[in-house]
C-alpha cells in the first residue's frame, strides 16, 4: 500500500484477522444534558459511550459543547434513568402511571424530573421532588408539575446519580467565544469575490 500521506506509509502491517469485538468493548452509555443558556432548564442532548461517569463527563464536553450553544452540562448513567410509559395523542403520560403500593421508607432521595412535551423533541428538566422510590417520585411529580398540557413521557433521575458541573468548572466554556474559527460567520469572502467579479467584467 502506497499512500500520499507519509504517516500512512509508516503504519505497521494491518492486522490480518479481525476478531469480532467483545460486548461492551465500546463501553456503556451515559445520557447527556446541556443547559443552552444561563437560567434556562437543562435538556437531554444525546449520549456518550464511556467507561465511567467522570470520563463520560469529559467526553460529553467534547461531543456536545464545542460551540457557544451551551453554558453547562451534566451526565448520568443510562441505567439510572427511570422512564414512564410513552403517551399517545392527547393522553397524558401521568395518567398512565401505575398506582403502586405506597412504600413507607425512612430514607428519601431527591429526584430530578424531565418532561417530553412533543414527540421528536427532547426531554426538558422541569423540577426536583423528594421521594423514596422512582415510582413515588413520578407520583409526586404528578401532583407538582402536571398541568393541562399533556406530557408525552416522564423521566426521573436520582440527583445523587448525576455528575453535575461544579461552579469552579464553568470556566471550561470560558474560551469558547475566542474560538471564532469554528464559526461560519468568520468566513467572509464576499468582498474579495465582489472585487474579483468586477475586475473580470471590466476585462471583458
Amino acid at each position: 500500500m502506497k499512500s500520499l500521506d507519509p504517516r500512512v506509509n509508516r503504519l505497521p502491517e494491518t492486522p490480518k484477522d479481525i476478531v469480532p469485538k467483545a460486548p461492551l468493548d465500546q463501553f456503556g452509555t451515559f445520557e447527556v444534558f446541556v443547559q443552552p443558556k444561563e437560567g434556562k432548564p437543562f435538556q437531554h442532548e444525546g449520549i456518550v459511550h464511556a467507561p465511567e461517569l467522570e470520563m463520560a463527563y469529559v467526553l460529553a464536553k467534547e461531543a456536545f459543547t464545542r460551540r457557544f450553544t451551551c453554558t453547562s452540562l451534566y451526565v448520568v448513567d443510562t441505567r439510572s434513568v427511570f422512564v414512564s410509559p410513552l403517551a399517545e395523542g392527547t393522553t397524558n403520560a401521568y395518567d398512565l402511571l401505575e398506582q403502586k403500593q405506597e412504600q413507607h421508607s425512612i430514607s428519601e432521595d431527591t429526584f430530578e424530573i424531565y418532561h417530553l412535551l412533543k414527540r421528536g423533541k427532547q426531554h426538558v428538566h422541569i423540577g426536583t421532588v423528594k421521594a423514596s422510590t422512582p415510582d413515588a417520585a413520578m407520583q409526586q411529580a404528578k401532583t407538582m408539575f402536571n398541568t393541562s398540557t399533556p406530557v408525552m413521557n416522564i423521566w426521573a433521575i436520582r440527583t445523587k446519580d448525576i455528575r453535575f458541573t461544579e461552579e469552579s468548572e464553568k470556566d471550561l466554556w470560558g474560551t469558547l467565544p475566542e474560538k471564532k474559527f469554528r464559526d461560519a460567520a468568520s468566513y467572509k469572502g464576499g468582498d474579495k469575490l465582489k472585487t474579483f467579479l468586477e475586475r473580470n467584467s471590466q476585462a471583458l
Partner: protein
Amino acid sequence: MYGGGNTFEGIKTDSLAQEDPIKLAEFEARIARGEKIEPADWMPALYRKQLIRMIEQHAHSEIIGALPEGTWITRAPGFKRKLALMAKVQDEVGHAQLLYSAAETLGKTREEMIHDLITGKSKYSNIFNYPAFTWADACFISWLVDAGAIVNQLANAKGSYGPYCRALDRICAEESFHLKYGHHCVIFLATGTQKQRDMFQEAINRWWAPMMHFFGPADKISAHTQVLMNWKVKMATNDDTRNQFLDMYVPKIWELGFTIPDPALKKNTDTGRWDYTEPDWEEFKRVINGGGPCNEERLAVRRIAEERGKWVREALRSPKASYVMPLA
C-alpha cells in the same frame, strides 16, 4: 459530511406481508400525521433494517470522510487554515459519534457497527475512496462535497425517525461552518495567482466524476422505493438531490471562472432540470466493491486505529487497577 445515494436493493419487498396489519396501519398513520417515530414505538422490520443501514453508512462516511482532509491539516496554508481544518475534522468525527448513537437506538450495537466497517461489510460514501493530491483537493472536499452532503442531510432531517432527525439537526448546524469555510478557501484560490487557479481547476477535473456519483444512481422507482418514501426513510430520489446540488453550486463554480469537465452540462430550459453526461456507473460499482484508489488505505487506517486504541480501552475499563510491586 455524508454520502448520499443510498441504494435500497437486496431486501425482499414481501417482508411486509409478515407484519401485523393493524400495527402497520397505526405506524403509517403516525408518519402521515407528521409525527416522529421513537425507539420504543412499534415499527416494521423493514423500516428498522433500512434505517440501521442508512444511519450506519452515514456514520461510517463521517469517520472515513475525515481521513482525506485530515491528511492536509499539517500542510494547510497558514495557522488559521490549520485551526479551521482541525475543527472541521473534529466535527466530522463528532458527527459520526452522534450518528452511531442514533443507529444504536434501533438495536445494532456500536461494537457490531465498527466491526462491520473494518471488515468491509458495511459501506461508506464512495467519494472518500479517492485521494486528495493537493490542497485544492482538500478545498474541493470542504466546499463541494460538504455542500452535497448538506443537500442530503437537510432532506433527511425531515424524515420520520426521531433520533436520526435530532442528530441531523445538530449536524446541519455545524455543517454551515464547513460550507462557509470551504467556500472561503476556494475564493482565495480563485482570486489568487494563476498557479492557484490552475490547482483548483485540476481539483474540479479530478473530483467531478466522483461528485456526480456521490448522489447515487437513478432510483428504480419500484413499489419498494415507494414504501420507503411513504415511511419518510428516503426523502428524495437520488436524481432530485443531484439536480438540487447542480442548481445551487454549478453557477457558483462558473462565477469563479472555472470550467466543469462535462461538455453536456447545462440547465435544460424546458424541463428546468440539468442535463449532463450519464456518470460511469460501472466505475462507481467497481470502487464501491473495493476497487478504488484508496479503499484499502482507508480501511487499513481504521483497522490500525482500532488495534492501537485497544490498550487504551482496556486501561479505561479497569480504572481502579493500580501497580503493585512484585512480592518476590
